[in-house]
Each structure stands twice: as structure tokens, then as C-alpha cells.
């Protein structure tokens, strides 16, 4: 029976090897210990030696091929003997385990996470302010009495106080804490048990937290959300599928009749020109406010949802392109956006932008309409999760309520990072954007 020659693990961390050169030809006799081939591992060029004697009856791979450990590279047997073919693998549970171990080790060795580098300014800011100070500040702003049962507000109590309260059926929410920052401690629960408290507990209005549906100003520029298991799986699988950024594309046709009218009217005022691009950017910024799920950064182990909209716009340069950023684009008027875009684009072409002017975007817009492109797909600018590609406005014959009519239309194509944005998420955002452009009043509604 022919014996297979497998790609051996010639180093503890080797997962595959490149067969550099066959040292024996098909038909050659081999003795135990003979060098059959040279193999390049992750560390060195090593020799693959014969484990049995006989004739090299088949070379399953060609020199230069990279072969996973345990895969068959050839066969030794008696001349003319049949072989099992290339796909046969050695049953090796342990082998797989060790390769896995090796991988882990490698990761442990080199994968030091740059946690400090990742620390964001807001976190640092939060850390600088001790929890108690913050709580005290909150206390000053709140009515003098502690909140009784403000919905969702955590009652601060020591573990012992909680245990005693549970045992005795005392409601902690009715107790005023005497510890730091109003922490309820043992003596407070003991006192409460001794007799009902005299002080009435009044509840201040609880601040409503961010709902997630729309961006509400919370004082923090963004919110980091840990990855759920499903999101991790989506991220992993999709990256395996199409590359580091699993991008998908959504295209919609936008009727630009009203936007055209609005623009003409605005420009007729003679107070500076507004371009279609400005209008689209303003609409995009406002649509992002309604769909914060698209206004986000992929951060490998979490997703950063921005509470601010910083819109990057692609500007073509002679030797490439650059994406200046209009900060807080959602809060700026169309006129402000127009002026800022013009200034940024002009200085971009003169290469006079400062780094902070072309970094930190949360979403991008790219427009090739002026170059007569009908539609295109733009490449995502990581860590952003989305970019809108704008085609030209063309006059098309479309069905109308009666017969046909000619309408000004434009195609928008959104590229989405699927790790952050799912199909439907992107679609509803794009629908909002489309509606805003088709009915510019919606922007101020």
C-alpha cells in the first residue's frame, strides 16, 4: 500500500509550508531519512525527509506550491501502485489543536493592544473627574433631597446596606444616604428600620437618556457600544467573505426637480452660490441625525456611534484626493455649509489644509456628477462606515400620473460597511435622504 507524504509541521507555529524544491523525482527510489523536498516554513527552509522506503510514485504538488500542514504532497510505494490522491488528509485532531495553540501564542506575543492609543479624549475626560465629584455636582443641581424612585436612577448603597435592606424588606429608594455622594450605608438602613423617615422624598425629573433613534445632545461627542455576539459574527464572516471592509452598495434614484427649484431660488437672492453638492451634504447631515446607526466608526472591538456629525467631502486634487471635513454639518445652515465647502475645497487644491481639517469625519460624500458620471460606487474611508456617491443630474423620461414626463433625476449610491450597517439600516437612511432631497422642506420640518 502506498504511503502518503504529508506536509509536516516543521516548526511549532507552522500552519503551512511552501514546497521550495523537490529533491526526488517521480520514479526515484527513496530510503528512510532521504531528503524528498525542501520546505520553507514560517521560520526557515527545512528538509522534508522520507519516513518509509520505496519509490516516489507521485508528486501531488508542484514546486513553489504552498501546502497546509497535514495535506498530502506525494506518495511513496512500489512503482505503478495506485495512490489516494491529493485531497486525503491525515486524521490529526491534535495537530489542529496545536496549530491553534500556536496561533494563540503568536497573538499573545505580538498582539499587544494599543489600549492607551485607543483611549479617546472623552474617556480621559471622564476619568479625570472622579465619580463622586460628578455625583456631587449632580446633587447640587438636583433638589436638596435625594431622588426617591426616579425611574432608572441607580440607588447607591453599600453591599452590606443592600443585604440588610433585602433581609428586612426595607425599600432603599426611600432612604437618604449619609455616606459619600449619598451612599446608603449600614447605619442608614438601621435608622430607616427603626422608624419611617420624616423627610419626604421628592423625585426630580429624570433626564431622559439617548434613545438611539435620533441623536440627542448629551454633552458627549459619541457613545461607544461593545460588540454583541451577533455583530461580532457578522463582522467576522463578512470580512472573510470580501475583504477587510465588507462593503455592500445601495442605489436609489432621486427626483431633483424641487431641489433644483429651491437652489435656483436661493441663488437668485444673490447672497452667494449654493451648489447641489451643498444641498446634498446638508441633507445627508440631517439624515444622519435621524439615523445615527450610519454615523459610526468601526473600532475592531466596538462600534463608536457619533453624537456629532462631521461630514467629509471628497475633493479631487491633481495627484489624488483629499477629504476635508465640515464639522457639525447638521448644525450649520446651508449657507454656512456652502461657504465652508468652498473655502475648504479651494484650500485643499492649494494644499493648504491643516491635518485637523481633513481628519475626523464621521461619514463621507463623494460627487462625480460634474464629470458626467451617472452613478458610481465610492470606497469607504475607514473607520467611517459609509459614503455616498453622487452621480450627475440628468433629464429622464419617466412615467407620470398621465403619460410620460421628463424629470431631473440623480442617482445616489451608498457604500456601507456591513460590520456596522446592515442592509435595512442603510436603506432607511438612504430613503430619508432621498425624501429630503425630493422635498427640501423636509429638511426644516
Amino acid at each position, binding site marked *: 500500500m502506498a504511503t502518503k507524504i504529508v506536509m509536516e509541521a516543521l516548526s511549532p507555529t507552522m500552519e503551512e509550508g511552501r514546497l521550495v524544491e523537490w529533491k526526488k523525482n517521480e520514479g526515484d527510489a527513496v530510503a528512510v531519512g532521504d531528503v524528498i523536498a525542501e520546505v520553507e516554513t514560517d521560520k526557515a527552509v527545512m528538509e522534508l525527509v522520507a519516513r518509509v522506503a520505496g519509490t516516489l510514485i507521485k508528486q501531488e504538488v508542484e514546486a513553489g506550491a504552498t501546502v497546509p500542514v497535514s495535506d498530502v504532497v506525494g506518495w511513496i510505494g512500489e512503482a505503478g501502485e495506485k495512490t489516494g490522491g491529493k485531497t486525503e488528509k491525515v486524521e490529526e485532531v491534535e495537530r489542529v489543536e496545536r496549530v491553534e495553540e500556536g496561533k494563540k501564542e503568536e497573538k499573545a506575543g505580538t498582539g499587544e493592544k494599543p489600549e492607551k492609543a485607543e483611549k479617546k479624549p472623552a474617556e480621559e475626560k471622564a476619568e479625570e473627574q472622579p465619580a463622586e465629584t460628578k455625583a456631587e455636582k449632580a446633587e447640587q443641581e438636583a433638589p436638596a433631597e435625594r431622588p426617591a424612585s426616579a425611574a432608572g436612577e441607580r440607588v447607591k448603597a*453599600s453591599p452590606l446596606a443592600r443585604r440588610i435592606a433585602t433581609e428586612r424588606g426595607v425599600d432603599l429608594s426611600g432612604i437618604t444616604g449619609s455616606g459619600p455622594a449619598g451612599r446608603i450605608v449600614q447605619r442608614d438602613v438601621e435608622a430607616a428600620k427603626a422608624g419611617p423617615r420624616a423627610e419626604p422624598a421628592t423625585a426630580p425629573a429624570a433626564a431622559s437618556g439617548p434613545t438611539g433613534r435620533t441623536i440627542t445632545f448629551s454633552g458627549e461627542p459619541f457613545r461607544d457600544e461593545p460588540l454583541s455576539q451577533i455583530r461580532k459574527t457578522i463582522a467576522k464572516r463578512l470580512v472573510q467573505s470580501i475583504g477587510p471592509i465588507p462593503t455592500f452598495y445601495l442605489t436609489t434614484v432621486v427626483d431633483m426637480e424641487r431641489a433644483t427649484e429651491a437652489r435656483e431660488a436661493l441663488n437668485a437672492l444673490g447672497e452667494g452660490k449654493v451648489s447641489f453638492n451643498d444641498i446634498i451634504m446638508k441633507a445627508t447631515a440631517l439624515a444622519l441625525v435621524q439615523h445615527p446607526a450610519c454615523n459610526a466608526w468601526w473600532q475592531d472591538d466596538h462600534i463608536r456611534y457619533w453624537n456629532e456629525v462631521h461630514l467629509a467631502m471628497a475633493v479631487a486634487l491633481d495627484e489624488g484626493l483629499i477629504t476635508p471635513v465640515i464639522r457639525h454639518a447638521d448644525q450649520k445652515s446651508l449657507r454656512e455649509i456652502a461657504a465652508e465647502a468652498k473655502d475648504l475645497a479651494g484650500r485643499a487644491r492649494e494644499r493648504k489644509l491643516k491635518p485637523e481639517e481633513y481628519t475626523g469625519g464621521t461619514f463621507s460624500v463623494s460627487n462625480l456628477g460634474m464629470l458626467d458620471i451617472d452613478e458610481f460606487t465610492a470606497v469607504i474611508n475607514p473607520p467611517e462606515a459609509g459614503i455616498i456617491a453622487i452621480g450627475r443630474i440628468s433629464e429622464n423620461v419617466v412615467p407620470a400620473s398621465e403619460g410620460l414626463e421628463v424629470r431631473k433625476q440623480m442617482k445616489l449610491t451608498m457604500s456601507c460597511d456591513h460590520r456596522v450597517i446592515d442592509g435595512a439600516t442603510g436603506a432607511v437612511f438612504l430613503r430619508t435622504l432621498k425624501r429630503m432631497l425630493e422635498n427640501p422642506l423636509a429638511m426644516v420640518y
Partner: protein
Amino acid sequence: MPTLTYRDALNQALREELQRDDNVFLMGEEVAEYNGAYKVSRGLLEEFGPRRIVDTPIAELGFAGIGVGSAMVGLRPVIEMMTWNFALLAIDQIVNAAAKIRYMSGGQFGCPIVFRGPGGAALQLGSQHSQAFESWYAHVPGLKVIAPATPADAKGLLKSAIRDDNPVIFMEGEMLYNTKGEVPEGEHVVPIGKADIKREGSDLTLICHSKTVSVALKAADQLGKEDIAAEVLDLRTIRPLDTDAILGSVAKTHRCVIVEEGWPYAGVGAQVAYTIQHEAFDELDAPIERVTGADVPMPYNRALEKAAKADPAKVVQAAKRALYLES
């Protein structure tokens, strides 16, 4: 009961164990003819001769390993490190050999050995001679770590350490050698792994060991003047930790300050605090406080050195934080 110094209590323990078991011998730098750098082995050469009381060259790694080898084949060496600072040169033999022989050999070989000597800061000896290594060795499975605070405990625990079948790290307090206390005569053995309440109290627990026991006792005196009853719990053994004693005291007082000479980062107190929060979470009425040596190499300057050490005032302050009396 006779009153002895900590030094003489250790000497008594060594003498009694050398008399009891011929397999016990003392080895180290200056232990024989010089009578010990700190005179712990005074008179032993005279009584037991150079076979049992062995002077070595200055070669910590070498003689520590010779001790480990002799323990593997059944002797019971007591290896004196002139100070624990120098034991860093021998730490490969302590951690990679002594602590692991039993495990690596699948239980075929034991290592009944005691490494002993003074640790912690004395006075103005500078960075390289003033440090507490308890947490270093306590980190290692296979080792036991002891740090007695009183003459009686020093004697009783050293006898237990010599009789123990495991490698034992026995850390004496350099500043404690001259302290005095009553020491039972003859067979006085203190079990390893048992903490001791040095002062009873109900308002909070001061957990300490070695030199910080006296610091905690002084702090407890001061707190007592303000009608605060502090309990002083001397760990005595760092590994294995007497978890029952710690939890028992915390269940009584609900508040706790951990005092140690060593540095704070990953120190003994960090482990004790973890144990308390994990095992007695619902007993805590306040966050656990720690008082440690400052997180710096020890300075030479007298005032700076004082500022770097745990002292009663710092313990009192920490106690008041734990009692919500001060922030």
C-alpha cells in the same frame, strides 16, 4: 514565660530543630564563624559544628540550588539569605526549581527547604536594601510564604517551616530583630496558614503582617482614643492565606484597611482585598482601604524615607475614610 528578642527566638527555633533532626542544616553567607550577619545563628557553629552550620561563598544562586538539590534527596536545609534583596540572585532556583520540582516530576520529588532572612526596609539603607518581597513569592504556586511579627510567632512559625515538606519562604523583619516579647519554651509550634487577632475590635479591621503589625497596633491605640474600636488581624502567613480569619473579622466589622510594607501594585493587599470582595461582598459597608509603601524605590533621605513608609498616621487616616469620617 521568658522574654526574648525576635532574634533569639529565631535562634532558639533553629537550635531546637537542629537538635531534633540530623537532616536539618543551616547554610548561607556568614552563618557559621561570623555567627550570622544579624547574629540569628549565634553559637550554632559551636554547638553543631561545620557539617551542620555551613558558611558559603557569596554565591546565592549556587548555594540556593545546592540546598534545593539536597532537599530533593531528603535533607531539610535552612538556607539563610543575608537579606532578601540578595535572594533576587537566587530566584531562578527558588521559583523554577524549588517551587516546581514536585509538580514537574508528577509528585516523585519533594523539596522540604526553608529560605529565610530579613526583608523590608531598615533605616536609610537606600533603594537596593529596602524592599518587601512577600507578594513576589506569594505569587508562585508551590511556595509557602511566612512573615511573623512577634518573637513568639517567629519561633513557632520557623519550627513549622522547617518541619514542612514544602519550600517555605520565611521573611523576617530586619527592624524586628531587637523587639522583645514573651516566648514559650521548648515545643512551641505555630501552624502555617493561621492568622492571629492581635487586638479585638468591632468598628473596623486592620489587616497587617510583619512590621506593619506594630504600625497597626499604634494606629488602633490612637483610634481607641476617639472611641473607635479597631481589630488588628496579623496574617502571619501570606500563602496560604487564612481566608476564614479574614472573612470572620470583616463579617464582624464590615470595614477594612490593609496595611503592608510592600509596594501597592499587585501587592499582598490587592489579593486580600480581592478575596474579601469576592467572598464577603455583602458584608462590606465601605470600600476597602490600603496603606502601603509608596510606589517608588526607597529613597535614602530620612524625611523622604519616612514619607514612603506606612505609618500609624496614614493608617488612622485610612481607617477614618473607611468609616466615612473623613474623605
